[in-house]
């Protein structure tokens, strides 16, 4: 490679020529004390909460966090060991912003958007504020589109919609992160931008996650924000807000669907507690500050399904060029109800016209916050807070995990409050009673353990239950397309697996999916396109399963 020195010189020359000799006016203060990522500063009398400051000597940035009578508490967004007593601090009159945009995709960055992956500087031209007000009621619309996780147990029983906040909660080492990573991997064909925020985790663990995402091709649409356990508490506290801002860019400015994983918010809460105690805010329950609920609620409220905007335009208008001013009657219809009204009434007055969606509207931000419990204690302070903020939770049980049921989802207490409305019709029709059947099975199973003789019907119900539990097991990083999930669960609920030994269910499933893809693609394609289980598709599926049964080869059979 040869460098063109004259080009580089010309850039530098033009910068020098256009340098503005303006007076540098700033408001300053002096560092009184510094430690644990926080500086107390005297001066800065007009500083505002959340305003950015700069430590003049080192160029390190900070954030005004605590306004006191005679001093200001500042979060240091960099190496706090470089700051010393007496250093000058200047206010920048701006809010904390992070770089956003396509340049961030595939990158691993820290809380303030600086690269950590050794792939060179990030050339983002756009920034967004880390703290941003959540969209109001008028700007939202109900969740109506599924976010496929690729995990059978979730997509069938606790479905997640785009724009929903679904909590993943469980003890340590129960597979919480795996669910989030599987969901990210499954977005490969779903056109969803993903942001994975790792808070207070071991760097080695995060490196594994990044490697998994890369190996599965997920870094092509994913941004990883890391604030590891080695970082100061302020950076861990801000990391989820920064990740959220990066996803918001795609939701607000590109109208795209996004997914944000916060792994995990209990560590962020601990970081915020540390921060608050250091700035001498009064401790409350479990020593958390009084505004710990707001800390999580304002983050998770930023998840939304934005209302689509519609206008009436001539029929031949290109959809990509439609904007708020394109409407022939000057009106913009916001959300599905407004649109339905317009179709019923206003459109009739404009023959030769159609209703078109304004480009880049209707984006969404789905949040998957993760909370780690201690000894299954879901009634602790932070878990109950986040449970009450989110639209449902996926609860992972250590007992199930160690019994080999993975993902170890406890279907009894896992719920999705809004996702059901976004579930595909095909999945809804076959998984409607799955949860109740499994709950009934768990009761029967407990009863059967007493050694009582069971009648044939009860034994049959038990056998079906055991197989359904096997069907819902799934390997790590192997998300399944919803059509495959529908076909497998259909076979299980209709009793096609009753004669398959329990330990062979996973093998049957593997061979069946392969068979359907290679030999009966028309059934799978019909499910993918129609997204519902019509009578014809159901009949075709049934006959396909019957055709597969004799072809199934048990492991070890010749």
């Amino acid at each position, binding site marked *: 490679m040869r460098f063109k020195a004259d080009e580089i010189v010309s850039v530098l020359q033009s910068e020098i020529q256009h340098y503005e000799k303006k007076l540098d006016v*700033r408001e300053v203060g002096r560092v009184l004390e510094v430690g644990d990522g926080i500086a107390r500063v005297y001066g800065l009398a007009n500083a505002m909460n959340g305003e950015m400051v700069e430590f003049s000597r080192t160029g390190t940035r900070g954030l005004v966090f605590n306004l006191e009578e*005679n001093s200001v508490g500042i979060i240091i967004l960099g190496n706090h060991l470089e700051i010393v007593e*007496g250093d000058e601090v200047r206010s920048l009159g701006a809010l904390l912003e992070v770089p956003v945009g396509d340049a961030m995709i595939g990158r691993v960055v820290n809380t303030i958007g600086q690269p950590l992956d050794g792939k060179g500087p990030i050339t983002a031209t756009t920034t967004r504020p880390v703290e941003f007000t959540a969209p109001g009621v008028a700007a939202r619309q109900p969740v109506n589109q599924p976010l496929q996780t690729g995990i059978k147990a979730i997509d069938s029983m606790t479905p997640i919609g785009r724009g929903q906040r679904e909590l993943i909660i469980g003890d340590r080492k129960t597979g919480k992160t795996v669910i989030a990573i599987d969901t990210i991997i499954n977005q490969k064909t779903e056109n969803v931008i993903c942001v994975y925020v790792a808070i207070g985790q071991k760097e080695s663990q995060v490196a594994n996650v990044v490697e998994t995402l890369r190996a599965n091709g997920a870094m092509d649409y994913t941004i990883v924000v890391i604030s590891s356990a080695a970082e100061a508490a302020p950076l861990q506290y801000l990391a989820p807000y920064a990740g959220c801002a990066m996803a918001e860019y795609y939701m607000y400015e590109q109208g795209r669907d996004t997914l944000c994983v916060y792994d995990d918010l209990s560590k962020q809460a601990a970081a915020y507690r540390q921060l608050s105690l250091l700035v001498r805010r009064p401790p409350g329950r479990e020593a958390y500050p009084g505004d710990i609920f707001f800390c999580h609620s304002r983050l998770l409220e930023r998840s939304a399904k934005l209302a689509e905007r519609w206008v009436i335009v001539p029929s031949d208008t290109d959809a990509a060029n439609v904007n708020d001013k394109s409407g022939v009657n000057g009106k913009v219809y916001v959300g599905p109800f407004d649109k339905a009204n317009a179709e019923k009434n206003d459109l009739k007055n404009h023959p030769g016209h159609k209703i078109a969606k304004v480009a880049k509207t209707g984006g969404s931000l789905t949040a998957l916050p993760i909370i780690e419990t201690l000894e299954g204690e879901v009634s602790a302070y932070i878990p109950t807070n986040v449970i009450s903020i989110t639209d449902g939770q996926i609860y992972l049980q250590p007992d199930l995990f160690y019994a080999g049921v993975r993902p170890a989802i406890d279907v009894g207490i896992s719920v999705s409050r809004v996702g059901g409305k976004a579930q595909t019709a095909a999945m809804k029709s076959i998984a409607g009673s799955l949860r109740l059947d499994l709950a009934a099975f768990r009761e029967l199973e407990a009863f059967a353990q007493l050694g009582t003789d069971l009648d044939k019907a009860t034994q049959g119900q038990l056998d079906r239950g055991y197989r359904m539990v096997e069907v819902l097991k799934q390997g790590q990083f192997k998300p399944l397309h919803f059509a495959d999930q529908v076909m497998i669960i259909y076979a299980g609920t209709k009793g096609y697996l009753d004669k398959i030994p329990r330990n062979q269910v996973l093998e049957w499933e593997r061979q069946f999916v392969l068979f359907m893809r290679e030999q009966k693609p028309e059934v799978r394609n019909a499910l993918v396109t129609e997204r519902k289980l019509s009578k014809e598709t159901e009949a075709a599926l049934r006959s396909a399963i019957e055709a597969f049964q004799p072809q199934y080869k048990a492991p070890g059979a010749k």
Partner: protein
Amino acid sequence: MIEPKEQFADVSAQRLAGIYAAALLNAAEANHSVARVLEEIDSLIDDVADKNRQLGALILGGAVGRKGRKAAITKAFSSRASETFFKFLLVLNDHERLDLLRPIRRALHDLHDERARRLRVHMFSAVPLDDDVKTRILKAVHDIFQLEPVLVSHVDPALLGGLMIRIKDRVFDGTVRTRIDNLRNQLIARSSHEIQSGRDRFSSAE
């Protein structure tokens, strides 16, 4: 001269100092002895405490008990200091607050300036400025703030040239050093962005 570093004293001490300073100034105003009290407090710190550290520790420190200090203060200041300032020292001693004397001095000067509608203007330059420049600056400050400016000059050769003015927390910086720093930061930021966003322009594969 009040050292700028006195501004960075403990903030809770400063709050207390503000209260004592207001009380002292009120008492001095009532006795028409403001100028004398200001001179005395400056002299106690600059000429006594700073020049003779041991004496300073005896009067302002905690090495000697309250009674011992009271005797020392009475002996040293009863006939030399004004009545207001002498009584003030005894009050501070009774309340074990003599260690706050430096922040009190700072607060006293600030409060006095404020009541007299005066504004302390710190001016930093690489070389000593002539009186004409100082007068022009003072006039400009007076026109903007409508307060009587009190100029405190500082010479710092590291500024290289130009002038920097600090009024309370606000800094107006026109020094050569800051301009060079800004130019350097701008060059690094913009040029690296330019180079990153158009790599083909600056290098070829040959």
